[in-house]
């Protein structure tokens, strides 16, 4: 029969990996249990984290949708090519047909001098001038126009068109382009500033929450340390706690974003209608939503690891 001491040693080393796994499983379960045991406190904390997550996410979605809207509005704008006066209606139609083959052209419409004349007559300051000119004369003095919808950027297409012999001049709304550029530059800068603030916020909130949670359980940690628990053993429940907080916060954030989307859908649709565009907000697809949840959990875990690691290093007995 082995001595009591020898027996002890063999027993003690038995199943250490199994115990490690078991402790992981237990930490996962008990940390969730602790959260559910005080639902209001959990909701409060997760709510704060959810806001910190929802804001940059909402911002990202907003920029994303704005880019889509911008692309739509941009695509609906046309270039106007003024043909030479000696280009007749048949030649104009033929040119339009050729241009439609170009990959950078989405659509081409021919506007005859008659149509131009009709449009000009709508302007009160010109109606009388045109009548004075006489319709025949005016029609002869007006060129045919091509209205092109570009596929892609306008400037290179405009340049290519200008080179064609039939085309007198190409005009597009450069001012409008400049303004859009300016708005985008401003939007980009704003988003960068806000994203910096909010990223900071998400980190602060997760870290602070876990810090205060650790703070309120410092005695428990002290006891575990006195009994010889490894840092990993002490940290594990906090890591799972952080991950759970993150997961719950991510779910709340998704809910908040959905609500915000619903609240904004109608005025945005009205806004888009003014630009003659049918536009619907696009939220997160299931894959992205899953990524948000996973990312939130990882964020919670990481924040918990940073703060609890710092705390353990700070309180490691005799090492300060």
């Amino acid at each position, binding site marked *: 029969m082995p*001595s*009591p*001491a020898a027996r*002890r040693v063999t*027993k*003690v*080393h*038995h*199943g*250490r990996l*199994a*115990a*490690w796994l*078991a*402790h992981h499983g237990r930490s996962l379960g008990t940390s969730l249990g602790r959260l559910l045991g005080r639902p209001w406190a959990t909701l409060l904390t997760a709510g704060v984290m959810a806001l910190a997550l929802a804001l940059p996410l909402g911002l990202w979605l907003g920029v994303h949708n704005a880019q889509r809207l911008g692309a739509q509005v941009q695509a609906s704008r046309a270039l106007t090519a003024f043909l030479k006066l000696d280009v007749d209606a048949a030649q104009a139609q033929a040119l339009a047909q050729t241009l439609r083959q170009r990959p950078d052209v989405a659509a081409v419409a021919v506007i005859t001098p008659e149509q131009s004349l009709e449009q000009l007559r709508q302007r009160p300051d010109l109606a009388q001038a045109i009548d004075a000119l006489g319709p025949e004369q005016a029609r002869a003095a007006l060129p045919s126009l091509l209205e092109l919808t570009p596929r892609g950027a306008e400037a290179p297409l405009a340049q290519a068109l200008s080179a064609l012999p039939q085309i007198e001049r190409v005009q597009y709304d450069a001012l409008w382009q400049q303004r859009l550029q300016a708005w985008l530059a401003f939007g980009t800068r704003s988003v960068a500033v806000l994203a910096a603030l909010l990223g900071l916020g998400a980190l602060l909130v997760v870290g602070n929450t876990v810090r205060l949670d650790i703070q309120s359980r410092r*005695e*428990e940690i*002290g*006891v*575990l*340390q*006195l*009994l*010889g*628990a*490894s*840092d990993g*053993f002490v940290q594990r429940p906090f890591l799972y706690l952080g991950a759970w907080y993150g997961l719950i916060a991510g779910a709340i954030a998704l809910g908040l974003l959905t609500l915000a989307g619903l609240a904004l859908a109608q005025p945005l649709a009205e806004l888009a209608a003014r630009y003659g565009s049918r536009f619907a907000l696009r939220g997160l697809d299931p894959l992205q939503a899953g990524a948000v949840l996973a990312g939130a959990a990882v964020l919670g875990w990481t924040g918990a690891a940073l703060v609890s690691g710092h705390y353990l290093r700070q309180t*490691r*007995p*005799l*090492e300060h």
Partner: protein
Amino acid sequence: MPVLQFDSVSKVYPGPRKALEAVSFAMDAGEMAFVTGHSGAGKSTLLRLIHLAERPSRGAVLFNDRNLAGVRGGAIARHRREIGVVFQNHQLLADRSVADNVALPLVLRGMKRAEIGKRVRSILERVGLGGRERALPGQLSAGEQQRVGIARAVVAEPALMIADEPTGNLDPGLSAEIMALFAALPERGTSVLVASHDIALVKRMKKRVLVLANGSLEDDIAPEDLADA
């Protein structure tokens, strides 16, 4: 081979308060000894140096011939798992049941669940807390809490058990029972060092007694000399 050795150990707390002054002694494996002395004599400080809750200001503490000054970082936790400690203020986890508290050292050693349950039940029976496994520490009387701390210290059959005033909240009958439990530990390979100011109890045990006074080791009385002291 000595399991524990103090080599002219001094401890000065910031203040500066001298809590220990050139204390030297050695304890053999399987030995049981008491530390006694007035309140503030340095008993708790002496024990704290053993499980590395404090470091000596001068001198060396050796455990199994290893100088504890070299035990740092993660090794501290491993060292502590080799030692059972009864703390003067219990140090129980308030939100875990009595059984979970007692099981902690076994969980930390990675023991199997079934084996843990068996051992915990057996030791709780021995300290008179059979049937209280599921209570929380806050639902126990002070003496009952103290016995939970004692059960936790001995459940893993450590190489060395140190106990700080383990019977301060126990009535004389229970104190004697607990001391009998301690006295049986050396047979199972555990050395025992108990700090106590209950001089009557200490004398009755007929074991080696280290007497501290103002931090100095004033006396080191062998069991056979106890009657004279």
